[in-house]
Each structure stands twice: as structure tokens, then as C-alpha cells.
């Protein structure tokens, strides 16, 4: 009886402890990378407290945590007190709850434990194993995070915060759809919404979904950047435009909760990219593919997963310094006019391949997986070229020279038509 509760409780403790530590050290990593990219050294002074040992600055997260906890927590007089308090909780709980169904490894074989413990089945490394609606749960819960942002922006009673919240709402709507569309292809190939089944499907075929459905992978990555509100899509908190965005008015531990939640979103996005598209714990020739494994393989699978996640997180952090932020309308243009059509095309191609893949593979003379990958890459190339040719993000809602008299029908007035007007054409 006790072990029924003990197992999930241990997993939850492990997960939350690990996540909090990871978030703290990811802040340090982010600061390091920010510094290195800007030709600086970054935090390298704080080591073991009360000694002179520096440890390359690895004590920085602890110092940051103490600073945040002991800082004055100021609540401005003009805020909506209840919502101001609830908003960081909402985003934090939403960010943590996502991890309930995301596997952080494969299984621990039952043989590892002494027989007297009465464990006869391998323990699956998911906080909530066997949730059949895994993917739906992930997207439902991660969408809750936007409430934290919108409520925080609203409750702060501050124009900048409000604009941040508003932008976040628009951004979420623009990117939920491509995010959902891009995973439908993955769910179709695996035939299940469970994340562990999706991984083991990739492990069994040996063909990661990123190779099979490159278009879906690109759409998912872009949408995941937007979901995690990372640059180049960090509009809700664009510092240069909105001071701090939705958390302008926050301080102390509430601000800490927002920041940790942001980093957890990034971890969740990286984990999902790895689990859905990069084969989860699978690596050719290293980890095997079945569920009947020995403990070294079990450890190896966790390590492979973590290394992959770390790689994706590094990419997230480097991407931050590589591209300028998208403008508000450019972001939505990209979401609605590029990513959603791409997601739809990906879905259609995958669906066709699921139905007629065997016939088409025989026609091409390749194995089913390889022909599917070939089709995926060909589709991506084609769609990309079409997008370049059509240039759908070029909008026409720009300020335009008006017709001098009367209400002539739309279109831009030719420059020569306005006497004396100057035009700089590029």
C-alpha cells in the first residue's frame, strides 16, 4: 500500500528538486553564454560561501536565490491585490505541472531492487506513467501559463505590463495552432498520444521524427520558441520596448517565480522537442529499443536524453544572440501565414504516407521509413521554395500615401501623382 504512494512521491520529489536546481543553473548558463557571446567572462567569482574558493562562479545560483528571497518585496498601491498575488502562482504551477507526463528516461528494471521490496515490474521514469492523453495534457497545461502573463499584466495596472500581457495573448493564439498541427503528424506515426510510446516508436524504427518530418520539426521548433517566449519571440517582455513587460511591477519572490517559470518553459520546450522529434532516449547502437533492459542501459538512456535536452537548450540560448526580435505584426504574420500552412502541409503529407506509404515505398524502391523521410525532405524543400517565392509575410497594412482628393479605390498612389512630394525609394 505504502509503495503505491511512495513511488510517485519519490519521482515527484526527484523531478521538482532536479527542475529547481536545473532552473537555477540554467540562469547561470544563460548569463555565461550571454557574457561569452559579448566577449565578456561572465559571473566567475562566487564559489563556496565564506571561503575564497571560486569554483568558476558555480555558487552564483545560490547567491542569486538568497538575494531574491531576502529582497524587499514591494507591492505597488495601485495593483489588483488578489490577482497580483495569484498570477505568478498560476504561471509557476502551470510550468511545473507540464513535467508530470514528460518522461525523463526510459525505465528502471525491476531486477535492480532487492526481491524483498516487492517490485516486479520495471518502474517507468515518468511522474505520471500511463496517462493516455499525455500530449493533450501537456498543451492544455502549458497554455495555462499565458493566464499568468495576462493576469500579471492586468493586475499590475501599468500600461507597459498590460501591453506585455496583451502581446503574450496574441502570441499564444498565433502559435498554439502551429504547435498543435506539427505534433499531429508525430501522433499519427506513433499511433498514440503517450510520450513514452512516441519515444519507443522512434527507437524501434530507428528513424527519429525530425528526419521523417523535417517540416513538422521546423514548425514545432519555431512555435516552441514562441511558446517559451524566448528571443527572437520574446515580445511579452521586450525590455527595450516594455521595460520588463508583464513583470515590470514585480519584485522579490514573485519575480523569482516568474523567472523560474520562464526557464521551466524553456526546459519543457527542449524536452518536448527531444521527446517528439529527436528520439527521446534513443541513440543508435547505444541504448537499444525495447523495455526489457539492464540497469547500465537504463542509466545510459537517461544520460542520452539529458545530453540531447542540454544541446537543445544551448541552441535556445545561442539563438537568443543570433537573431533580432521580430516585430509584433511580423511575429503574427509568421505564425498565421507561414507556420500554419506549413503545419497543414506536413500533416497532409504524413497522413498520405500513413495510408499509402507501403505502396508508394514500393514504387520508389525504398523501405517505408526511408521513403517517408525522402518525401518529408522533398516536401520541406518545395514548401520552403514556394514560401520564398510567394513571400506571404509581406503585408499591405502599412501607412500609405493617400489619394489627394475623393475616395479612390485602394492601392498605393503612384509617387508622381502627388506634386511636390518627395520619396526615398531603396
Amino acid at each position, binding site marked *: 500500500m505504502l509503495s503505491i504512494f511512495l513511488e510517485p512521491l519519490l519521482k515527484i520529489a526527484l523531478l521538482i528538486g532536479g527542475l529547481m536546481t536545473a532552473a537555477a543553473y540554467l540562469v547561470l548558463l544563460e548569463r555565461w*553564454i550571454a557574457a561569452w557571446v559579448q566577449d*565578456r567572462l561572465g559571473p566567475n567569482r562566487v564559489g563556496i560561501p565564506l571561503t575564497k574558493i571560486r569554483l568558476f562562479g558555480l555558487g552564483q545560483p545560490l547567491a542569486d536565490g538568497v538575494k531574491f528571497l531576502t529582497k524587499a518585496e514591494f507591492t505597488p498601491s495601485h495593483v489588483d491585490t488578489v490577482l497580483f498575488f495569484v498570477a505568478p502562482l498560476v504561471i509557476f504551477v502551470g510550468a511545473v505541472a507540464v513535467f508530470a507526463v514528460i518522461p525523463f528516461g526510459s525505465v528502471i528494471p525491476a531486477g535492480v531492487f532487492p526481491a524483498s521490496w516487492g517490485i516486479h515490474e520495471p518502474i517507468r521514469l515518468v511522474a505520471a506513467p500511463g496517462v493516455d492523453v499525455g500530449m493533450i495534457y501537456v498543451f492544455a497545461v502549458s497554455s495555462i501559463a499565458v493566464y499568468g502573463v495576462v493576469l500579471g499584466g492586468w493586475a499590475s495596472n501599468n500600461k507597459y505590463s498590460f501591453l506585455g500581457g496583451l502581446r503574450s495573448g496574441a502570441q499564444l493564439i498565433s502559435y498554439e495552432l502551429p504547435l498543435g498541427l506539427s505534433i499531429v503528424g508525430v501522433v499519427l506515426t506513433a499511433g498514440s498520444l503517450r510520450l513514452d510510446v512516441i519515444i519507443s516508436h522512434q527507437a524501434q524504427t530507428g528513424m527519429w521524427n525530425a528526419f521523417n518530418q523535417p517540416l513538422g520539426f521546423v514548425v514545432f521548433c519555431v512555435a516552441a520558441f514562441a511558446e517559451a517566449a524566448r528571443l527572437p519571440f520574446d515580445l511579452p517582455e521586450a525590455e527595450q520596448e516594455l521595460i520588463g513587460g508583464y513583470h515590470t511591477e514585480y519584485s522579490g519572490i514573485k519575480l523569482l517565480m516568474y523567472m523560474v517559470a520562464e526557464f521551466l518553459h524553456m526546459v519543457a520546450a527542449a524536452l518536448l522537442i527531444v521527446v517528439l522529434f529527436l528520439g527521446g532516449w534513443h541513440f543508435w547502437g547505444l541504448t537499444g529499443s525495447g523495455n526489457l533492459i539492464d540497469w547500465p542501459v537504463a542509466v545510459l538512456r537517461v544520460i542520452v536524453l539529458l545530453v540531447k535536452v542540454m544541446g537543445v537548450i544551448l541552441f535556445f540560448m545561442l539563438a537568443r544572440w543570433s*537573431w533580432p526580435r521580430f516585430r509584433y505584426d511580423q511575429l503574427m504574420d509568421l505564425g498565421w501565414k507561414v507556420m500554419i500552412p506549413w503545419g497543414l502541409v506536413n500533416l497532409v503529407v504524413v497522413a498520405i504516407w500513413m495510408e499509402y506509404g507501403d505502396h508508394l515505398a514500393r514504387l520508389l524502391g525504398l523501405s517505408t521509413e526511408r521513403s517517408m523521410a525522402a518525401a518529408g525532405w522533398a516536401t520541406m524543400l518545395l514548401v520552403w521554395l514556394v*514560401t520564398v517565392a510567394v513571400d506571404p509575410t509581406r503585408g499591405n497594412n502599412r501607412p500609405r500615401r493617400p489619394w*489627394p482628393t475623393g475616395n479612390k479605390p485602394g492601392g498605393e498612389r503612384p509617387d508622381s501623382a502627388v506634386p511636390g512630394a*518627395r520619396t*526615398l525609394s*531603396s
Partner: protein
Amino acid sequence: MKPNDKHVTWVKTPRLGPAGRSYLLLFVQGMTTTLRHLFGRKKTVQSPEERHEIPDPLIYRGVHRLNRDAQGRVKCVACFLCATACPAHCIDIVAAESPWPDRQKYPQSFTIDELRCIFCGMCEEACPVDAIELTSFYDLSGKSREEMIFDKEKLLSVYDQTKDAEPMRTRRD
């Protein structure tokens, strides 16, 4: 501003070429720059342990000093030119009749508020006898505001400390 104002200059948005529209080349370009800097040489100077290299201490504008002449007296003749030139009004001189025969006045007190000073070097330029100079000593700190108001003795002691490393720029004595 009306949109049909003829003084308005209309700027056409430049259209991206195929490379720009595909995002792919810009993606590679941006990432390459990032990676180059990520592994590139760092410019940080680890301050208390390492020191900034000052290329030419003689033209650096750090803390002031009051120079002494060959007999060890303060060179200043209390002409007030530096106090007049100072844009931050941080120099305060009280002049008195000189005890020495070679000049009429000398500064009975000479104080510089280092917190108000903007280290522009105008005092140094204005001085007709090269009595006030700026040294290359830059990391100046104090525990109170009063401590940061340097009097004549302190400014002369700055000279005593820096005279070997940074000789006086001109000698007219």
C-alpha cells in the same frame, strides 16, 4: 502631421531578396557570428587582480595633484584660473599673501570636491604655472562624502606618490 503633407518624406520599405526571405542564410549568418564570439578572445579585465593598461599616463585624466616646485613648496600662485575654468565648480581656493618673495599670493587652502569633478582636465589646461595636473590614478573611493573632498595636503601627497611614475609635464622653475 497629415499623411498628404508634402513635407512628409515617404520611405519605401526595402523588399528582402530570396536569401532574406528564406531566413536560412540569415540564420546561418547570425549563428556564425554568435559562435565566433562565443569562442573568441574575451576582453574582460579582472579588475582588482588585473589592472587596465593605461596607454599614456601623461595624458590620462585621473585624480588631481598639486605639484611642488624645486624647493618643495606648492607651485600654485592662487590665481583662480582653474576655479574659473572648472565647469563643475568643484575647486575652492582661499588665497593669502605669500610668505615667499617670488610671488604675491599662495593658496592658504585648496580643496577639490572629487565627487563633483567631471575629470575634464580644464583646470590643468588653465593653470599658468602647471601647478595642478591630473594623474593616471583612477580607482578612487571613500567611505563618506567628506573624505572625498581633497584638501591641499592630500593633493600634495598625491604629487609625492605619483611624481616618480609621472613626471611633471613642463618645468618652468
